[in-house]
């Protein structure tokens, strides 16, 4: 299945690997507005968990423990913001990454079943791989970053202040007055 999937999607998945500033590509025309509930599959959850485990290993560091951040739930929320065709492509990409470890990676096991060292090495190969591999690995990294760093306290652990205006009692100065003349 993964090899067939790879061939089928190789030329179709260009949009998948967008990885915008925060989340993922979603290039619907405005007429198609995404707004629905999306539930990650057990496979998707496991993949994202296993990826986050090696990508953001917080144990013994000053970062907020990953176990205290709903990383995958946050990603699920991000999925709900995508239009249906993009979401489908993203899901295919996650499968490709996970199952690609079997044949493309020659591990004969899915990504989620690899050891920590194997998973790190697998990600590094995709970072330097073909265009689509670079794109998909970047998407997953950005998803995990979004899922983890969306948490305000995770930011505060590295010295980022987060929201400040309300806490600081900074008032609105309101609308600017209309110019008196047009010159």
């Amino acid at each position, binding site marked *: 299945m993964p090899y067939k999937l790879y061939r089928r999607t190789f030329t179709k998945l260009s949009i998948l*690997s*967008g990885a915008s*500033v925060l989340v993922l590509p979603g*290039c619907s025309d405005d*007429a*198609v507005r995404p707004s629905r509930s999306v539930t990650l599959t057990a496979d998707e959850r496991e993949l994202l968990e296993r990826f986050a485990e090696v990508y953001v290993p917080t144990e013994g560091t000053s970062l907020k423990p990953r176990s205290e951040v709903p990383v995958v739930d946050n990603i699920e929320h991000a999925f709900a913001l995508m239009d249906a065709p993009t979401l489908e492509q993203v899901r295919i990409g996650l499968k490709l990454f996970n199952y690609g470890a079997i044949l493309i990676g020659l591990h004969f096991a899915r990504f989620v079943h690899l050891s920590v060292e194997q998973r790190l090495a697998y990600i590094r190969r995709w970072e330097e791989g073909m265009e689509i591999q670079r794109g998909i690995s970047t998407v997953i990294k950005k998803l995990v970053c979004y899922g983890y760093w969306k948490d305000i306290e995770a930011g505060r652990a590295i010295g980022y202040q987060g929201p400040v205006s309300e806490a600081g009692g*900074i008032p609105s100065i309101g609308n600017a007055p209309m110019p008196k003349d047009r*010159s």
Partner: protein
Amino acid sequence: MLKVTQPSEIPDAGLTLDADVVVIGSGAAGAVTAYELARSGAKVVVLEAGPYIPSDQFREHTATAMETLYQDAGNQVNTTGDLPILQGRCVGGSTVVNAAACFRVPDQVLQNWREQHGLDNLSPEVLAPYFERVERNLSVHQNDPHEVNYNGRLLIEGAQKVGIPAAPISRNIKECALTGHCISGCKTDRKQSMLVTYLPWASELGATILSGTRAETFEISDRRVTAVNAAASDANGKVKPVRVEAGLVVVAAGAVQTPLLFQRNKLGNSSDQVGRNFACHPSLAVFGEHEQDVYAWVGATLSAQAGDVENPLRGGYLLEAGMVGPVVTSSWVDGGIGRDFVEFMESAKKFQAAVTLIHDHNVGRVYLDGDRKRIEYDLDERDFESMREALRGTARIYFAAGAHRVYLPTTRRTTIESADQIDSVINSLTNGKHRYRMTSYHPQGTMRMGADPARSVVAPDGRCHDLDNVYIPDASLFPSSLLVNPQVTVYTMASYISDRILARA
């Protein structure tokens, strides 16, 4: 606050409005045009596809802002998928979520527009009073010393050491509270976006502003658009028809949505240029790690600039000192994986940060593929060379400022460990899809302005060549990219075109 008619307030049966002018889009171009025409006594209706979100609802949280204030929840990308193209999608448009940087279009670009596109009317002398007007109206000023944070001072100091021009940046802001949350919307209304300036002024002069109302079709009669049909979508998914009959139509939906609207209506395209000539200032972020804390995200989002902005056609680039929170920090630059990534983020407060802008060529295209929009744009080889120069300049500045490591925005962690490695590392970079973590903040150029109707969509006075009563004042009309942040030039062109409309009325 702003008086806005929201979809929930529109009857289920819909709404028909009669106006002198219907303006599609409430961002930089739409808001200015609405105000200028309302000021002359015209009855103006503004249709905005995005929601109205008052500033007191801004959360100062980047992820939330992306979901609520940005086009496609911040996920609009090129067809290749390696270039996010950020635009505001809310009342006030991108002016609500930009970082307030203000520049006039470089004279060299105007000269090119005159020579290559027949825009003899757009001389610096003609445009100067329009620039002055919008700059005065929007409190544009060069950052005062207290508005230049440590990150900005490092950029200026490093640039001076290596002989690159640098200065505090100019912004449209009043009494800046230095929260660092410009791109999430200014919660305390210090940034002089359209939300607190031209839109409330237009409203005060009688303009009607509809949010959540997306223009879809035009009714046409003999080279004139006689009515615009729109759809207002409320929070429950109910869609209500809105029809606006007007003598004049201003399309100011931005460089992505404006051409799509014309394409959807198969309109205005005798030149076959609608949607073509897309440019977007593909931008890269670069971090320089220092021994001491920098806290680049504290203070003005953009504080200082470096580079040769007067020479965009000769490879000039622009660097802008700025950084936002960890969601973006972790996405702009690849810090590695595992322990490398954790240490990278733990060190983020020690990063000097800037983004690069280049004068890219108009090699892209915006079009509809069924009901899906496509933004075809890949980095041109000529622009890649400009980008490398910008990276080289940034690295030189950072090391001169005292950084001991520079992180480049590649899709796999790439660092420069000392100044003498700069050339070898930068020279090893190659152009290619999914090799860099680029972002675009400035889509432009899909409805090119020009004197020749066979080569352009918009005439020198802002009117669509093919239509007698349709004007386009947004960034889509730029015949080439600017290099600099475009908002002030958009305001200026909208003011200029408003005067052309009034002169013709």
